[in-house]
């Protein structure tokens, strides 16, 4: 160190923020998301959670159920369960991954890190926005891995590359909206243990009572009524329509119509929970 500056001298020329601008908010969000991504890459259990677990689901579902199920699928699946499964399991993986938003946030809350952030002249929204953005970037990585393994297992989009990419993009957008739900749940749960059970528990029935793994037509009427109308089914159907064509959708649905419904759900969920969670985060300072 050639510096002769006294590190402990106070009040030197620090460009102090007097108020936080929109540009500051963007910068802070990027700083925070980079921090969260480092953590994701360096925490072994998070790496396993993000890579091995979803790949295992994909491989097991494909080989264990594929043989029996492929006979009953619509022709749009091209006779291979992996084609039907892929759009669904992508959404399932993203949902499970989004739960990390809640758990990571509660870890910061109990560890005192959030207190530090709150005492800094940074954008209030950046703590949550940085976390959801970091999770989105992680999800892009997980998605790439899933698609690679899927191709190895024989997955082929029956429409076009554009359809495939559009389906993936829709799933990622939905996962981003769900991250805001998870941020809200994390702020409610307040500690990692509560977040773990409080978040993962409801995800399981929501994922299974949907069109993620199978068409809903063989479910009992009451379950089908729920499954057909919940957002996960709408998003999975839209992604499936984009990747496999209109024949993969329930009778009477068009791909465009299904995509619009999925987008409406995604935007509504994202907006509502972004507003709610940021308000909750701010109000914690009372």
């Amino acid at each position, binding site marked *: 160190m050639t510096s002769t500056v006294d590190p402990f001298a106070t*009040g030197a020329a620090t460009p102090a923020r007097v108020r936080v601008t929109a540009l500051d908010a963007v910068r802070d969000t990027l700083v925070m998301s980079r921090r969260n991504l480092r953590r994701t890459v360096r925490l072994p259990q998070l790496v396993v959670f993000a890579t091995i677990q979803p790949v295992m689901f994909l491989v097991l579902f494909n080989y264990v159920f594929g043989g029996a199920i492929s006979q009953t699928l619509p022709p749009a699946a091209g006779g291979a369960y992996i084609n039907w499964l892929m759009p669904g399991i992508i959404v399932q993986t993203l949902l499970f991954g989004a739960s990390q938003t809640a758990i990571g946030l509660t870890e910061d809350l109990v560890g005192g890190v959030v207190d530090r952030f709150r005492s800094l002249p940074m954008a209030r929204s950046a703590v949550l926005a940085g976390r959801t953005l970091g999770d989105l970037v992680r999800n892009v990585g997980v998605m790439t891995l899933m698609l690679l393994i899927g191709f190895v297992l024989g997955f082929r989009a029956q429409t076009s590359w554009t359809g495939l990419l559009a389906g993936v993009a829709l799933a990622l957008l939905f996962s981003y909206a769900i991250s805001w739900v998870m941020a809200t749940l994390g702020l409610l749960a307040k500690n990692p243990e509560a977040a773990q059970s409080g978040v993962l528990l409801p995800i399981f029935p929501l994922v299974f009572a949907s069109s993620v793994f199978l068409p809903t037509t063989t479910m009992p009427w009451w379950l089908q009524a729920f499954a057909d109308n919940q957002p996960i089914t709408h998003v999975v159907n839209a992604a499936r329509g984009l990747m496999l064509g209109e024949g993969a959708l329930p009778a009477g649905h068009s791909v465009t119509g299904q995509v619009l419904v999925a987008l409406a759900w995604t935007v509504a969920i994202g907006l509502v929970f972004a507003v709610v969670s940021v308000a909750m985060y701010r109000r914690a300072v009372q």
Partner: protein
Amino acid sequence: MSTAQGAITGDGAPAIIAVRDVVKTFGAVRALDGVNLAVPPGIVYGLLGPNGAGKTTLIRILATLLRPTSGRVEVAGVDVVANATAARTRIGLAGQFAAVDGYQTGRENIEMVGRLYGLSPRQARRRTEEVLDGVDLGQAADRLVRTYSGGMRRRLDLAASLVGRPPVLYLDEPTTGIDPANRMELWGLVEELVAGGTTVLLTTQHLEEADRLAARIGVIDQGQLIVEGTADELKDTLGGSVLELATAEEHETTAVQVLARVAGDEPAYDAERARLRVRAPDGSRTLIAADDVFLSLTGHPTGQAPPAAAEAHPGSAPQGRPGQPAGAGHTPGGPAARPASEGQRR
């Protein structure tokens, strides 16, 4: 912005931390019940009190983490409620729990905080080098923090709070749970900081810590600042200290002779409790005496909630073991047992 409250400290200097009639309620609980505080710049101000007294609540309000229910708070001339962002540029906070990321390196932790203070990437890098060297973590800068010892984490936490060169630093029980060597090192850092012009508000349960570092001490209990002044002033309110010694019975005679010579007063033997007691000689202002001040003011030892049934032994009992917040021989009572809200507060 001028000091709108016109808060003046005991020395007649304008206060850098000014707290006026602050009340904070959580539901039915009054965590702070009308606190007034004026801290002059450039000193360590020690805030003493048992758990639940309101120390941390006050720090959290001063650090913009909580809003007061009523009352006004200004730090470095800025109202922390009305202008929280500006206040945050003037403060640093190091808490009871080292709020650093185990899965980032020391350098990454500090750079991140620098960026969040609004420094450019280059400024943040340069400042990070400075503060890491300052807390003697330059060598460990590129290690993941999860490999750091508890003392290193505390120093990193302190470094993080210094990135923005804050004129006011809050240390909430900075040495709780760390070993004596690291405590000494942290004390040294705090002294360097104050020499550099920083004002430090320190909460602690260790009276030794307050006596060693703090130019002024405030005792907070049940949400109120019940007394404040210099350490010596606080000791004076007791009207002389009493030294109490536990001895083996067979050494009693020897001990009495030795004590009589040292203290210049005749020791008395308390048979019931097997203790020798003697008035401390004038001018021997030991730190341990502060423990007694604290005890006689709040009626319960530091670090403990008010006891259900306080024993009523007259006098107080310093023991020869510094840093022990709740020694066995400490009992409430004594000549200055009344809350000294008048007389000391100015």
